[in-house]
């Protein structure tokens, strides 16, 4: 893929990629922007290869997921460095200002999603938010189709239970 074509593809995917980066960063907008920038840099520098085995969308989402995980690990490591307090950032999590602009239904959905295990949350995001199939979600999450199906069913049941519990 030529650099120009790559940039056109990235621009087309930008809203969905930002949503996915937000999901990978637990709703932290600053961390999501940081993750997206690092992912774009990997793609533009050719460090992330798109070999055509999967669609560009699932390949790039995989890059975003891995980059978010790297940044999470890096942040955890910084906390142990002696000078980390000099450049300390607030704790990860949704921005309070953004949380205030959310509707009641969305706020309840996010609160229920946070309580799910990471894998279940990722698969549900990919299927319901990004409209991917379970097979594509498995590709992005780097797990087998059977495992993705299990996470999907368990996650869906747990999410429904939590949302119904909130309603009562």
């Amino acid at each position: 893929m030529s650099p120009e074509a790559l940039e056109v593809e990235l621009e087309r995917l930008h809203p969905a990629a930002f949503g996915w980066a937000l999901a990978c960063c637990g709703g932290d907008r600053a961390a999501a922007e940081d993750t997206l920038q690092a992912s774009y840099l990997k793609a533009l520098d050719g460090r992330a290869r798109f070999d055509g085995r999967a669609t560009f969308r699932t390949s790039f989402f995989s890059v975003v997921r891995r980059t978010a995980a790297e940044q999470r690990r890096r942040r955890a490591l910084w906390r142990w460095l002696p000078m980390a307090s000099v450049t300390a950032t607030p704790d990860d999590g949704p921005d309070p200002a953004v949380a205030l602009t959310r509707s009641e239904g969305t706020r309840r959905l996010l609160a229920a999603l946070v309580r799910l295990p990471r894998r279940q949350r990722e698969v549900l995001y990919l299927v319901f938010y990004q409209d991917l199939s379970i097979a594509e979600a498995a590709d992005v999450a780097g797990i087998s189709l059977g495992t993705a199906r299990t996470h999907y069913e368990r996650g869906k049941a747990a999410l429904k239970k939590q949302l119904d519990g909130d309603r009562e």
Partner: protein
Amino acid sequence: MIESKEDELRERFTALRREDAAGLPPFSKTVAAARGRRAAPGRGRLLVLATAAALVVAALVFVFRGHDRPHMTIDLAAVRLHAPTDFLLKLPGADLLRTVPRLGRVGLDRRTL
């Protein structure tokens, strides 16, 4: 029933996607920021460099100040340990126990008899 539940979840996620899109940063700005990262060293790299420099300085100070300090040699053979309870062993007439009496000089002086 199951279908309606799934539709409800889908609707909730659609609302979430709509709200996320409201705060979407422009693509051009994100790409420009990404390219800027390539040129400028990251915050993490600066932090690691600063920590490494601080460790090197601390190591140098430790090494050089260690050489300047005067050494005090201790002769272990000359050291005597005094325990705090040593006074309990001091008995009246203890020096009699440490010396050997000279039997040859002991005798009666006839002039005083």
